């Protein structure tokens, strides 16, 4: 059973339309949920946490349907977002005391360790915490229990390098336990490429790529090429023009497609592997690059 199963999920917010979205996150996976600003990542995570309801589609989390299984889902999920606001509780200690009351699986020892490692004191005032420290507090809350699914919305925003490394270590430890899964949305693609084994790319509310990270990185390759025919670049399915300087071309090739490059007058000069960031930029960019 998948940790997350979204089927045909749609949500309209003014002019923005999310979906229809079909996405699964297998147990044991760390899914990098990436997309440009306003792509719908936070909206998707919000829907999974019951913050708003989809107009259409089904949301399944840990084998339970939202909203019917809302309480059980939240009991077994841990959620982190930069928008979580704990100001009304005044101090870090009080916010933690409040939250732990809702989770029988709260591990106080782990909480104290995380507080130490993230360098937050229980008596610190929430209002005077830095932005990064607020995220750290959310992370402490999320990681102090025995959740089965971590939903992390921009967890690295404002974190210093040490805190980021600590977070990644915690995520790796977390996912080693049986049946756990992580869905992490971030713009730090290089970090995600090392951490995640699955990826989903969202753009303008639509899923444009998803699957295993290694498969995605293998699938696309960057080509330095020369166009020998002169004139316009032929439109070829599976080829995206990244840049052009006269006859010199920089292309992204989808290896899944059988593209007749030579027959189209394209001479490949060099092949370079692409990083997640390169692929993301190419897929999300407007494909109508002047050819």
């Amino acid at each position, binding site marked *: 059973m998948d940790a997350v199963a979204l089927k045909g999920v749609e949500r309209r*917010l003014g002019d923005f339309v999310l979906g229809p979205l079909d996405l699964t996150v297998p147990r044991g996976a760390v899914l990098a949920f990436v997309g440009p600003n306003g792509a719908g990542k936070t*909206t998707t995570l*919000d829907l999974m*946490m*019951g*913050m*708003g*309801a989809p107009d259409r589609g089904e949301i399944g989390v840990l084998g339970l349907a939202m*909203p019917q299984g*809302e*309480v*059980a*889902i*939240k*009991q077994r999920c841990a*959620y982190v*977002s930069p*928008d*979580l*606001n*704990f*100001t*009304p*509780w*005044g*101090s870090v*200690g*009080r916010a*933690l*005391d*409040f*939250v*732990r*009351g*809702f*989770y029988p699986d709260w591990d*106080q020892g782990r909480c104290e360790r995380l507080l130490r490692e993230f360098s937050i004191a*229980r*008596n*610190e*005032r*929430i*209002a005077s915490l830095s932005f990064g420290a607020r995220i750290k507090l959310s992370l402490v809350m999320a990681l102090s229990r025995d959740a089965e699914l971590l939903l992390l919305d921009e967890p690295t925003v404002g974190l210093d390098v040490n805190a980021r490394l600590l977070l990644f270590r915690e995520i790796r430890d977390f996912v080693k336990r049986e049946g756990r899964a992580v869905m992490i949305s971030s713009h730090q693609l290089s970090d995600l490429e090392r951490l995640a084994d699955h990826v989903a790319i969202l753009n303008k509310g639509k899923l444009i790529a998803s699957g295993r990270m290694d498969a995605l990185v293998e699938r696309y390759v960057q080509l330095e090429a020369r166009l020998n025919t002169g004139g316009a670049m032929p439109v070829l399915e599976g080829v995206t023009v990244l840049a052009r300087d006269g006859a010199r071309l920089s292309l992204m090739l989808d290896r899944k497609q059988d593209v007749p490059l030579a027959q189209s007058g394209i001479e490949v000069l060099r092949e370079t592997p692409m990083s997640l960031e390169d692929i993301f930029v190419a897929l999300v960019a407007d494909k109508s690059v002047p050819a």
Partner: protein
Amino acid sequence: MKGLEPGARVRRLVLDISPLMTGYLLFQAVLGLFLDFIWVRHPFGNPMLLPGVLLALNGSMIAPKVPLWRTLPVTARDIDRARWWHSVGVPASVMALLLAVAVLILKLAGHSHAGWRDIALSWGGQLACCVTTALVWMAMPLARRKWGSWSGLALVPLLLLYFRIVVPAHGDLRPSLAYIIPAAILAAALLYLTAGRWPLPQTTAMWASPSGEGAGEGAPSRLSGWPVLIRANLPVWLWLWGMMVFISLTLKWILPDFDLNLFGWIFGLMSAQFAVTNLATAMRSLRALPLRAARLTAVLVLLLLSVQGLSLILFRLVLAAGGEQAMPVAAFLAPLVFPLLYFPAALRFGLRVAQIGYALSIIVIAPLQLLSRDAATAPPAVAGLCAIAALGIFWTWREIARGSRAYRMQPLVPARWRGA
């Protein structure tokens, strides 16, 4: 690249008004004109100062924008000048215009109107309201930053002065206004001249968040869950209630004829403001808890009603202590119900717009309170208030369960920056 002239910069800041706010200002202007017109036609008793009280509030409405303004290529003086125009300059001009329009209408209709001296005193008194409010808005954050939340007590004399001006229940105001108005004009001029040195505005309610003081325990508390939220906010409640009792009884002592029943709404509104602001800013955190939407709604409604109920019980005790004849119990229902309408409005429209929702909720509910005081009209008024309460609870549930705006709440930006 050549920048804008100072005058143009100030003008741009002054005109930084959203369409919604424009609508609200127009509403205030129409209401002010109505009040002025009634008074100019029948100049009973003291000069009409209420339009000044209404328009004086606008100075606080632009406060949340000030932190952003500081990032623009404008000077601190430009910002303070814009604040001056919002809180003193524009209201003074609009109030003069409204009085002039009221007189003009009466002249065209061939009716008599109040004497010119009384009209001038009205305008001057309205200006004094605006200047006093501007001073209060400046003094509050300054006092808080210098001496902490309890320094709010230092504002009591200023508030007493304010009520001395606006409450017409204690004799002829005109002789006092003859002194107050020149002082207000002088204060307005001084405020204008000291632009650039004003303290930062209060962009969150003075009592909006618990201080965290006294939370120095290194170990987890024995309490957990909802009681922690109540305990965390208890010191603020005690502060708020203490202030309200102190102000009410001091006012009664200074002005024995003052009807403390007027404070009913102030008690109710201050409690609601604190509770609603606190809960609304934390909605994302609250919704992430393993609770059904219906249960979360029930808990929040219960919290709001408890806080409001306690405030109103305290107010009733204050009335008894002040020797006032208390309002009928039914009349307490309106301020009790108020946060049930104000809270979903804040969830739906955000904290900045909630300032308007605050006023609109009062406008919806206040007439029902008036009706509920009379035995004959009380039953339908109570029924109406119960219907509003039910509607408010349903609306809250809907915002929590189905809406998404409650989770995108932008807290009012605290006006804090180094070097200010």
